[in-house]
């Protein structure tokens, strides 16, 4: 018996080989490190004090002071928690109503110009949210927002502020909601697409009117497919930082992400790391709760996928007299969320922050651009952005692919735990991730703090993106393809390199692109780990905005958009090959 076990064990190591064990071991260690090390640090720091020392500086000790201060403060219960709840629920609701209407119009009706609408709706998904936030501020601040100026002029109102006020809870909710739409729209479109059209047709032939069908069949059948994106949007709203910072802070609306940032950047004192960590913990728990709910719903949604006939797309509902209201609805959203913000930014970059008038066209100035292009900090930010986004996307893709191989194909003990850890990363709000990274690298004496490398390491925590994608890719890859290579004499590492990775190429590319976009847009981590040296584009943009150098902020934003537009056309061609017939 023992001899057999021995033989099997020998055979197994022989299977993978020393090189294989090393490669896999390194990948697993990296994956565990990227996620658990910062979280462990966060947890410990919450129990370290006193507040004027770093959590693990000599002299610091274990304490419950942080909790006593944070949870003894009534602001938490009277402001932060209620505000966060209202903010999250409100913006998810706004986003859902808009996104579902748009998805339904584009997927199921004969709305004219669906292709153009589709592209314009998803366009903001790859633009850093800071850009949108700034553009909306230009448009809707009560005193000088251009839309307000225009309304006051048009109606001859004698006031100096309003009528619209983005610096309010409703304003913040609408902005956050609008910024969530593209993402929700994509997921809801997918849900609508995968629904068997015969479900609705069976209702019609049972004698139900279209309206009855919609409420009794379409919505309930879609429910899991709808709830999952809703939960995910709630998670994103909870961790959202850009809009609360740019809109919420001047409006004195305190949500939890901002509270953490406050503790780190108090107006007067030194940063209080322990307290920030203590604030973070319950919100981390809430976010993870949402994550598990999401996971549960996704499984449920999969059980709803039943046999589908080889169907054609169902006939589209003719909009009839609803055609114009539908077009106006979609155009209004696109106008406010994509087109007008883009136009405003271009304008500000060329004409400064003066609303357009008849005479202003003559005052065009390229100063903002020329200053920018002669400023080495701008080039450094461009370099940093690409370096950090590209390198972290590469590392995460590689590590994620190997980790998913371990999870799917090996019988390594603890592979379930590994899968769980990588999955957790979706549920960690980026403010908390940023805080945890800050604590970790300020403590670890490896000299990366304040360099771009700390950003590369920090961005690597988003492992779940690849493990999800490459796991799906790996599951479609029949195990016999690997076995055939091994039978042909290929060592494990050779098999991985020459068979598995090439065959997984499409999912690897997809995950790289996605991670690159996420890294390109990233703002929160970069702001929290900010130093003079490691600024990226989204942060430099915010810095100009903070210093009221509006034309330069707008110029950076314009350049980002100009760079991003071709990417989205490439991505659409590449990532969405399904029919989008005209």
């Amino acid at each position, binding site marked *: 018996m023992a001899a057999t076990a021995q033989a099997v064990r020998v055979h197994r190591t022989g299977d993978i080989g020393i090189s294989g064990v090393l490669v896999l071991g390194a990948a697993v260690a990296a994956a565990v490190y990227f996620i658990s090390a910062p979280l462990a640090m966060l947890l410990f720091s919450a129990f370290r004090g006193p507040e004027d020392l770093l959590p693990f500086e000599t002299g610091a000790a274990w304490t419950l002071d942080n909790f006593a201060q944070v949870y003894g403060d009534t602001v938490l219960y009277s402001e932060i928690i209620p505000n966060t709840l209202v903010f999250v629920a409100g913006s998810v609701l706004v986003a859902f109503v808009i996104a579902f209407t748009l998805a339904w119009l584009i997927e199921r009706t004969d709305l004219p110009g669906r292709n153009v609408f589709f592209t314009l709706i998803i366009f903001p998904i790859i633009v850093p949210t800071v850009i949108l936030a700034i553009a909306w501020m230009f448009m809707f601040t009560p005193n000088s927002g251009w839309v307000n100026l225009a309304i006051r002029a048009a109606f001859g109102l004698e006031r100096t502020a309003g009528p619209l006020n983005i610096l309010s809870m409703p304003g913040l909710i609408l902005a956050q909601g609008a910024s969530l739409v593209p993402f929700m729209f994509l997921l809801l479109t997918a849900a609508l697409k995968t629904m*068997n059209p*015969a*479900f609705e*047709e*069976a*209702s*019609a*032939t*049972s*004698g*139900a*009117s*279209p309206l*009855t*069908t919609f409420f*009794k*069949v379409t919505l*309930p*059948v879609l*429910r899991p497919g709808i709830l999952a994106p809703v939960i995910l949007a709630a998670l994103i709203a909870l961790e959202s930082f850009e809009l609360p910072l740019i809109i919420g802070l001047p409006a004195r609306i305190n949500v939890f992400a901002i509270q953490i940032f406050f503790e780190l950047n108090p107006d007067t004192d030194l940063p209080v790391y322990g307290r920030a960590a203590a604030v973070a913990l319950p919100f981390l728990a809430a976010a993870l709760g949402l994550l598990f709910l999401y996971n549960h719903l996704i499984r449920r949604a999969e*059980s*709803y996928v*039943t*046999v*589908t*006939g080889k*169907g054609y797309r169902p*006939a589209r509902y003719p909009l009839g007299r609803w055609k114009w209201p539908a077009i106006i609805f979609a155009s209004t959203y696109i106008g406010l969320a994509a087109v007008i913000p883009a136009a405003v930014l271009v304008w500000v970059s060329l004409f400064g922050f003066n609303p357009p008038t008849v005479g202003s066209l003559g005052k065009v100035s390229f100063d903002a651009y020329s200053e920018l292009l002669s400023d080495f900090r701008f080039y450094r930010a461009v370099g940093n952005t690409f370096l950090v986004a590209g390198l972290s996307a590469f590392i995460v893709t590689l590590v994620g692919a190997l980790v998913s191989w371990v999870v799917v194909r090996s019988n390594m003990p603890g592979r379930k735990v590994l899968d769980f850890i990588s999955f957790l990363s979706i549920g960690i709000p980026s403010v908390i991730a940023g805080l945890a990274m800050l604590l970790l690298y300020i403590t670890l004496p490896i000299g990366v703090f304040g360099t771009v490398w700390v950003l590369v390491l920090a961005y690597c925590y988003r492992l779940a993106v690849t493990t999800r994608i490459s796991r799906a890719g790996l599951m479609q890859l029949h195990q016999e393809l690997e076995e055939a290579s091994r039978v042909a004499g290929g060592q494990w590492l050779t098999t991985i390199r020459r068979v598995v990775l090439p065959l997984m190429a499409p999912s690897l590319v997809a995950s790289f692109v996605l991670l690159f976009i996420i890294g390109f847009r990233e703002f929160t981590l970069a702001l929290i780990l900010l130093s003079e040296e490691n600024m990226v584009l989204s942060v430099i943009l915010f810095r100009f905005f903070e210093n009221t150098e509006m034309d330069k902020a707008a110029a950076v934003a314009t350049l980002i958009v100009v760079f991003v537009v071709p990417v989205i056309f490439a991505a659409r061609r590449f990532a969405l090959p399904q029919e989008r*017939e005209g």
Partner: protein
Amino acid sequence: MLRVDRLSKSFATPDGMTQAVKGIGFEVAEGEFYTLVGPSGCGKTTTLRCIAGLERPSGGAITIADVTVDEPDAGVHVPSHLRDIGMVFQSYAIWPHLNVFENVAYPLRVTKPAPVKSEIEQRVMDSLQLVGMGDLARRSATKLSGGQQQRVALARALVRKPKLLLLDEPLSNLDAKLREQMRVELEEMVARVGLTTIYVTHDQAEALSMSDRVAVMSEGLIAQEGSPRDVYARPSTQFVASFLGVANVLTGIVGGPDTVVLDDGAGRLSVPLSNGFETGARIRVVVRPEDIEIRADGADGADNCIAGRLERVVFEGAQSECFIRAKDYRIRVRVHQATDAREGDDIWLRILPDRCVVFHQDGN
């Protein structure tokens, strides 16, 4: 009961318009079981979906129970839910958010005014009993096997006793054995309710065994319509003949009154020929495997016999398929009892004259 008149339907596709249905017409009487059969892509589903009101015809007219429900030229289109129909979809379309009972009750619940609760209960259970699913009324719809889904879909289509029952390949998602069993059961259930039924299938065995009348479709048109026996025995084109079953095709020319001379000197047949065939015309003789006998002896030209060599015998249990080489032809013969003939034997084939169907060279 149902009249379809010069129905046509075109679809806009990326490479222009395709005409899926090219002007077909048929009438179905009250209580009749009418089948549309044909190869994939011939327009069966499209026709059925037009009748259901799920697709708007491009031309022609559809009348259900003396009400014109579609006539594009007159701007008439009655939407699906206002037509009194029941339909079983190829994918069954059992709603996953409702249990078996609620799936079947749905058509009653959405009628206005809805029947009272006890009546709904009664009719749903009757319907479920009919399809043999009475015990599973409370089962979740996501936990049904293919055959069970099919029964529930049928119960749902029958529950409000519609004027017209539409079935689109209801058996094609079942495995072979279940399919055969359900074929008989389905026919019996439908017969018991006595509904006018339009059945769509690409399976000739289903079409022939279940229907009162069949229409064989090809490329958007009806190639032939009639009772299953008629269409099988007297196909009007070679396409219909070979679609409905295995057919041996022998080519030759008309050698005189009721005489066919086969090519390559394979022999002569005496076959009743109608007036349309003139002496010297090239023709095709189609004969089914079961309409040929194998004999140990015979004589050339006599008694409709031709000589051949038995190349291969495939034993299939209740019957055997024999492949016989006669000059250039490879002829398939089905024999029911064990034959003494062995592979390699020289034998004679006797072709039953009145079972032959003769076509012109072009297949018509």
